[in-house]
């Protein structure tokens, strides 16, 4: 089981209590599709993804970004059992969506960078470490049921 310090627990709760989901979600997914263009393979029927402007203004991508970010809420509320919390979602991503689990890591990196840009100086090394640890656990749980 993952051991969390008090600082890590508090940091994760605080980050998610203070981000604007409608801004961070779309920004993170759009950034991922621009920085790692091969991730666009999963969004064939999301309309125009031809260039960065199209991606950043695409309403379907924006909506999906918000959905993904809210998907993290479950982990935030169940930090002591993220593995089981995401078992079903893991099966979904494996069996139905067929997403290469490496993509979770790519999106996670983009989310880190967007949150860093929002939090500015308060995104210290310690806060970054806590956030990346949390995301690593989430990414691992999402890839766990692949077979």
């Amino acid at each position: 089981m993952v051991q969390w310090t008090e600082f890590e627990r508090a940091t994760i709760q605080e980050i998610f209590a203070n981000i604007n989901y409608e801004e961070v979600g779309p920004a993170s997914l759009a950034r991922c599709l621009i920085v790692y263009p091969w991730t666009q393979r999963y969004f064939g029927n999301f309309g125009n993804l031809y260039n960065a402007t199209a991606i950043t203004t695409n309403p379907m991508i924006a909506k999906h970004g918000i959905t993904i970010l809210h998907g993290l809420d479950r982990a935030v509320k169940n930090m002591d059992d993220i593995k089981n919390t995401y078992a079903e979602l893991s099966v979904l991503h494996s069996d139905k969506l067929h997403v290469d689990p490496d993509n979770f890591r790519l999106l996670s990196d983009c989310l880190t960078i967007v949150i860093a840009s929002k939090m500015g100086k308060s995104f210290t090394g310690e806060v970054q470490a806590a956030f990346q640890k949390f995301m690593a656990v989430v990414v691992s749980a999402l890839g766990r049921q692949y077979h």
Partner: protein
Amino acid sequence: MTSLTKKDKDAVRAFWSRVAGKSADIGADAVCRMLTVYPQTKTYFDHWKDKSPNSASAKNHGVTVMSGVAEAVAQIDDMKAGLQSLSELHAFTLRVDPANFKILSHCMLVVMAIMFPNDFTPQVHVAMDKFLASLALCLSEKYR
């Protein structure tokens, strides 16, 4: 995977000209952050008296690394030729495991996002990511 287009190089040069004035701060924050977020990187610095993430040694090292990055920007049209001595340094003396280039690059990108939230757009991000990956490849080229 890491061939820089003209568009990439232009983006890197343009962004760099905006941030070069703060490059020492960027470097210091990136290295200090790396030592905190990825403690295994401390193993390369046993020779420092003070190995804590915010030590003077760590900050100075960040400045050193970043001046290497500045040099790479200047040599962006032919990094392989322009960075020969740095490449040899890393291959024969430093022998930093290449996985760590990715780690430090990530930390640099995070610092850029923190310090320049409006300039570090997704387009700049992808260009810088490609550039740093290209630089890393250059540095590890002579490893074997």
